[in-house]
Every structure is written in C-alpha cells, then in structure tokens.
C-alpha cells in the first residue's frame, strides 16, 4: 500500500471571482522510503500538488489517500502526525518571537526535555548553545537546519521540502542538501522534494514528476527522465538548466 496517493486530483482556486484550475488529473503515489522530486517552472502547480498531498488544500476533483484511507472524506489527523514540511524561506517559517528550543518542540505538542532538544540540534549539526537563541540570531543556513530539526522531531514518515535551499547561499546549499539526504536515508523517510532546480532533484531523488500548466507531463525514474526526456517541456527545462 502506498504511503500517500493522489488519484485524479484537481485543485481549483478563485482568482478575482473567476475559477482557475491550478492542477488537474494528478495521479501520484509515494511509497514508504520513496524519494520523489516534483519539478516545474514558476506557476506550474508543483507547490499546489504538495499542498494537496498534505491535505492543506481540498481537491475539487479526485481523492487523496493516506495509507489507503481518504483524507478528503475521512480525517487528515493521522497524515498530519506522519508528515512534515520544510519551506523555502526559514525567515518566514520560523516564529521570530520563539527561541529555537520552543520552535523545535512545536510538533511534539508538549515541552521537550533538554536531552531531546540537544539530540534534535545535534542531528542537524547544531551545538546545544543554539537552543536559547532567536531565529534572527542565526544565519540562513542555521535557520534552515532548525526548520529541518523541527520537521524531524516528531518522527514523521514523510518529509515534504518545498525549495528548501533556494534562499540559501551557494556554499550552504550543499550542506543543507547533504543533511536532508542523510536524515532521509538514516530514518528511511519518504521524501517529496519540490524544486525548479533539476540538479537538486537529481542528487536527492530516485523518481521525478515534471509539472507544466497544472499537469504532470512526465514521470519516471530520475535518470530515465534526465537522459531520455519524452516531453517537450522536460527537454526545455533540461536545456535551460545551466551547469559547469
């Protein structure tokens, strides 16, 4: 049974009173331990697919199943306990009024022990002394490490990362990506990585879905899609990706 599955999913938003279909006909299953990249340009619908998967937006058509049970007609509570999210910009995703230890303990819904905080910080390569700091006292890379520690503290089965390194410095990017890769591997987590950067997806994922104009236009094992793209849009994305 898949960990999470979208069947014929569609999401319609209203823009200035006019219905606007953000994604349609989305079929996507994520197995336990799977590492799926969702790639596409700005406005392609890739973030909407992630929101759909996490029950953060209601489908206008289709269904979303967590371990075989609909989270649309049933409760999304079990999914919410088993999935966590890392956003692009840790500046806006971390509460500026909270110290790091409280931020990390948020998903536990209880006060964390000092040992738990120390372990959570150590798992993302931060010293215990960071526990009493506020987000503004940390660098961008440290803030994203805190966001990752928070995402992992409640022992999720699925980690969804939405452009987790786009806002980071070029040298810090590699460190944070290595951290995500190592944590996902050692905890055997399923990973959904949303990115416009194909290099990032190639490094971290085993499967990739290419999203264009609200549809998945191509999906398959990463190396197949990168080496033998079948869709014209995938070809354009690959051609536009600059590398050394």
């Amino acid at each position: 049974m898949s960990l999470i599955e979208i069947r014929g999913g569609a999401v319609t938003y209203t823009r200035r009173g006019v219905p606007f279909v953000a994604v349609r006909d989305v079929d996507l299953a994520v197995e336990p331990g799977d590492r799926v990249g969702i790639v596409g340009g700005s406005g392609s619908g890739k973030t909407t697919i992630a929101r759909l998967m996490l029950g953060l937006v209601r489908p206008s058509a289709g269904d979303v199943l967590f371990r075989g049970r609909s989270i649309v007609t049933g409760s999304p509570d079990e999914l919410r306990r088993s999935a966590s999210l890392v956003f692009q910009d840790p500046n806006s995703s971390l509460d500026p009024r909270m110290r790091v230890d409280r931020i990390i303990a948020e998903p536990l819904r209880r006060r964390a022990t000092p040992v738990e905080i120390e372990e959570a910080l150590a798992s993302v390569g931060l010293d215990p002394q960071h526990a009493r700091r506020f987000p503004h006292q940390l660098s961008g890379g440290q803030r994203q490490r805190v966001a990752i520690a928070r995402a992992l503290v409640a022992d999720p089965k699925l980690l969804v990362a939405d452009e987790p390194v786009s806002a980071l410095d070029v040298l810090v990017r590699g460190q944070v990506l290595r951290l995500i890769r190592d944590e996902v591997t050692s905890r055997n987590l399923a990973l959904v990585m949303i990115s416009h950067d194909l290099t990032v997806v190639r490094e971290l994922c085993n499967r990739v879905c290419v999203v264009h104009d609200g549809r998945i236009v191509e999906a398959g094992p990463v190396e197949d899609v990168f080496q033998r793209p079948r869709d014209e849009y995938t070809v354009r994305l690959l051609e536009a990706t600059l590398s050394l």
Partner: protein
Amino acid sequence: MSFLEVDDLTVRFGDTVAVDHVGFAVEDTGRLGIIGASGSGKSVTSLAIAGLLSETARVTGSIRLDGQELVGLREREYRELRGSKLSMIFQEPMTALDPTMRVGRQIAEVIALHERRSGKRLTVEAELARVGIRDPQRVGESFPHQLSGGQRQRALIAMAIINRPGLVICDEPTTALDVLVQKQILGLLDEVLTDRAALFVSHDLAVVREVCRHIIVMEHGRIVEQGDVDDVIATPEHEYTARLVAAARGTL
C-alpha cells in the same frame, strides 16, 4: 584609460571591513563577473560603485567612471550620474519597482528624464517591446504585482537602459527566477549589454559564464582569484574558488 577603474577600494561599516583594498578595471564594452558567497563583499562593491551604500559606510580608495572620480561625490551629483552614465538591475524586481505605481508610469518617469537630456522622443510601449515584452500596452497598464517575475525583470531592464548608460551593474539579476525564465533573461541581458560596460554580480558561476568572459572571485572582502571564467572553473587556484566550483557542479 578604462571606462571603469576601481583602485584600492575599501568599505568599512564601523569596525567591519566589508571590502578590503579591491581593484579592477572594465573597458567601455567589457564585462566583468564578480563571484562570491554571501558576505564576500561582492554586492557592497557594486553598491559602492553605484553610490547606493548607507550613510554608515566609509568608502576610501578610488572609483573612476569615464574619468570622473566617484568616491566623495555628493548624493545630488550621484543621482545625476545614475540617471545617465550608470544604472543597476537588482535581484528582486518586486522590491526595485514601486508597488503602488503602474509599470508604464514608472518607465515614463525615466523616459522624461531621458528626453530632457537628449531631446529624443521615446514611448513606454516601444521601450517595453525592446526588452521582449509581447503585450507592452497591457504590461504598461499593470501594477508590478500583476506581472510575472520575468515580466517585472524585463521592465526593470527596460528602465535601466533607457538612458543608454555606459555602465550597467547587474546584481544577481536572475536569482529569483525559474530556470526557463532565467535563460530568457540572460539572453536579453547579453543583447542589451552589448556596446556598454557591465558588472555582473552573482554567487552562481554557471550563470556568470553565460554573460562574462572575465571574472573576479571575492572572499571576506578581498579578491582571491581572477581570470578567464573557463580557466578559473577548470583549474581553480584558491581553495574557496574550488568550493564554489564544486557547489555549482552540485556534487554532494
């Protein structure tokens, strides 16, 4: 004499030295890439040249643009210069454009300045069309938030070149864009920067290589390496450059 000559440039904020005795030159049709990670001093260098640093910055050394010394220039004189001899294209067009003003009006203001100087008539639509905007009338009537990131950056490029400046400083001009739009904007920049001097600031070597042949690499406010972009990428001499190259190759 080069069009832009930077000599022994140092920028301090209190006790912090952000740019440390930096020197380079750019010919009148030359392009120079400035590469570095966050805090390397690359953006402070470009802001110093554009005269856009905060009042707390202490700038020493020399910046000569077309023979004119810029260090110590008054803000009024700088404003005159920014409208004519040099312009800047920033990373985030959403913050560089006025969110409360229609794009066409913002462009018209720059055009008015140009017409006062040159006496030549220009139209908003023609200037927007020149930077590859397909429906210039609609874009001109839009507010910045109603446009895509690529359209906003094109509008900003249009404004930057209306006065035909001799030097255009581009600071991470494609960092906020997705790969497809980035490619289009780099193509456009390559075109509009022809026949003028350009500084291209970025943390991304692959991006800089698209538009520049010559680069300098900055770390802790200093130039640690410089040369032909392909040579630097192939055989980086400095350990820091090697790390930047590895990061750009994306190898974890």
